[in-house]
């Protein structure tokens, strides 16, 4: 276990002692988390580890029961989704939340249209194209309704939309969960490009391969507590052990069983 302070820069976001109780249940206890500019932090953990709760706290949907959130060196209170957006914390939710009946431009600018009484379609389209081009996104036409786009393209639009308001941090909840191999690779590329623009990225994923492919640091949560910080070089076994809380777990048992099976089969031949 080697927590690695990756950069000398000040963190954009610093969580100290964050706890969240739902009645008698403590979903999060004493969470510490730093996010630096130009860094991808992966948040991993089993179901119920508190990842989504943490994201919702950062998105301003939930308020923490205890602890402090420092944003750009100043202590802040995220008392609503609007407040988080205003500060520059953008969230891409798992279900993307796009309007299928509207085209790409309309979705990108939804709720933030230019000149509300005489929509400035030309400027909006131009901004949409330049945003998508910066992300090297492959959207054939921004005047297509979202309904005609693939899952990866929709994810791209959702990520582009979160970048529209020039955030400092972007959080992605399971960005690759519903995607195929090629689209997953595209989204991972996209995440790297966002990082290269100097943003902090928090990504939640169950897919260890994806996590190790893009993350600079991997933060493991277990039963609502920090359970170690790892790097991409950490072995799969070590990560799984941290996530499940034991070197001896369902995953290792299964691997051992499969290895034993293979051995007997070979011996039998």
């Amino acid at each position: 276990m080697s927590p690695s302070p990756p950069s000398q820069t000040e963190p954009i976001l610093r969580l100290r002692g964050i706890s969240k109780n739902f009645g008698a249940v403590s979903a999060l206890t004493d969470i510490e988390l730093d996010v630096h500019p130009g860094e991808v932090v992966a948040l991993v953990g089993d179901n119920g580890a508190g990842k989504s709760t943490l994201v919702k706290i950062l998105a301003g949907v939930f308020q923490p029961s205890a602890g402090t959130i420092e944003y750009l060196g100043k202590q802040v209170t995220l008392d609503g989704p609007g407040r988080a957006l205003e500060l520059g914390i953008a969230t891409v939710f798992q279900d993307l939340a796009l309007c299928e009946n509207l085209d790409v431009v309309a979705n990108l600018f939804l709720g933030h249209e230019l000149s509300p009484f005489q929509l400035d379609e030309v400027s909006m389209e131009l901004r949409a194209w330049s945003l998508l081009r910066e992300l090297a996104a492959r959207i054939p036409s921004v005047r297509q309704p979202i309904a005609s786009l693939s899952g990866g393209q929709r994810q791209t639009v959702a990520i582009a939309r979160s970048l529209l308001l020039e955030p400092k941090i972007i959080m992605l909840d399971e960005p690759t969960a519903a995607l195929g191999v090629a689209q997953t690779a595209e989204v991972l590329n996209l995440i790297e490009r966002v990082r290269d623009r100097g943003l902090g990225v928090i990504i939640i994923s169950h897919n260890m391969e994806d996590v190790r492919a893009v993350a600079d640091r991997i933060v493991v949560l277990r039963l609502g507590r920090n359970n170690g910080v790892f790097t991409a070089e950490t072995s799969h076994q070590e990560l799984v052990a941290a996530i499940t809380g034991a070197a001896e777990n369902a995953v290792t048992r299964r691997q051992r069983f499969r290895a034993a099976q293979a051995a007997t089969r070979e011996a039998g031949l």
Partner: protein
Amino acid sequence: MTTPDTETAATLDRADTRVRNDDSFAGAWRGFVDRVRSGDLGMLPVMVGLVLISAVFTALNPVFLAPNNLVNLLFDCATVGVISLGIVCVLMLGEIDLSVGSMSGLASAIIGVLWVNSGVPLPVAIVAALATGALVGFVYAIFYTRLGMPSFVATLAGLLALLGMQLYLLGSTGSINLPFQSDLVRFGQTMIMPKWLSYLLALVPGLVVAVTGWRTSQRRVAAGLSPLAMRLVLAKAMVLTIALGVAAWYLNLGRGLPWMFALFVLIAVVLNYALTRTKWGRSMFAVGGNREAARRAGINVKRIYMSAFILCSTLAAAGGILGAARLASSSQQAGTGDVNLNAIAAAVIGGTSLFGGRGSAWSAVLGIIVIQAISNGLTLLNLSSSLRYMITGAVLAIAVIVDSLARRSRVSHGRA
């Protein structure tokens, strides 16, 4: 197929070679066929419907197409048409208002009681009727957003309650005649636009299309985007001008273009602008398409519902006032019968989806012309209202079936 920008590096929006750009006439036609095939029918059912209806009724009774009959038709269109514009707003959100008929009846009763019976000045009576409509819409919105009452139940209750209020206001006499010489009744029965003005107005839409198209195109080029296909824009402007010019000429062979219909079209133009070119309109489409997405994008969803319900009831009241002017009376029958269904059917036939997120103000204009043409044609054939109701019901059913099938096809073709 020719593209205007093959000479240099492609403009920003034309860089992707996977997209076919339909800039030529043949391309536009192919795009149209593709859209219709995938279930994006747009105005097609209305156009086909209008041609069919005109052919059938003219064959049965040539008076149908006589200029003066069409002038009457337009007078009748204006009253229910205004109500239908409101229906477009609530349908856009995937909601419904079943009480628009009763609301229009109540508004006509308010006009009769306040203006004729109590001697209140007409403008005050009109404002009172419209304000009542706004209040009713406000109550529906509260029921829907705060109490979670489905809109069709809330407005079904409203249908009965408003009808009760109408009967209560009119009292035992049952109907109030409006003075024939008053401006309101003349507006509803005889006021016709001067010929020169109708021709002038027929030129306006084509000019607006051409000029805004040209200006948008200039701005797009300045911004480094591809220009609009000006050939198509000009063709559209020309077709529009010719069609409207011919229509104006034909109506002027009879009495001419009713002011009341002009008012209806004016409201439709304003609503169309609001729906397509303002943030409010964009929010309406977004809430109708995906309410949760709209909420997370920071749109105040409750306020959007509120605006739609208020607009719908207010326009229903306005339709009621026009109806009173048309009939020169406020009666117990005003707003009953098929008014409700005609208003809803007009919007749906014109292409506004019952499922929310799709629609336009023009759907109400074209849809109501279809509905009134049927009703007018059947009246010319001396058919009783029993048959008229049955046929209107069947037309509504067909319109909804077309809407459902088209929607299913759109889903499978990746169009929303």
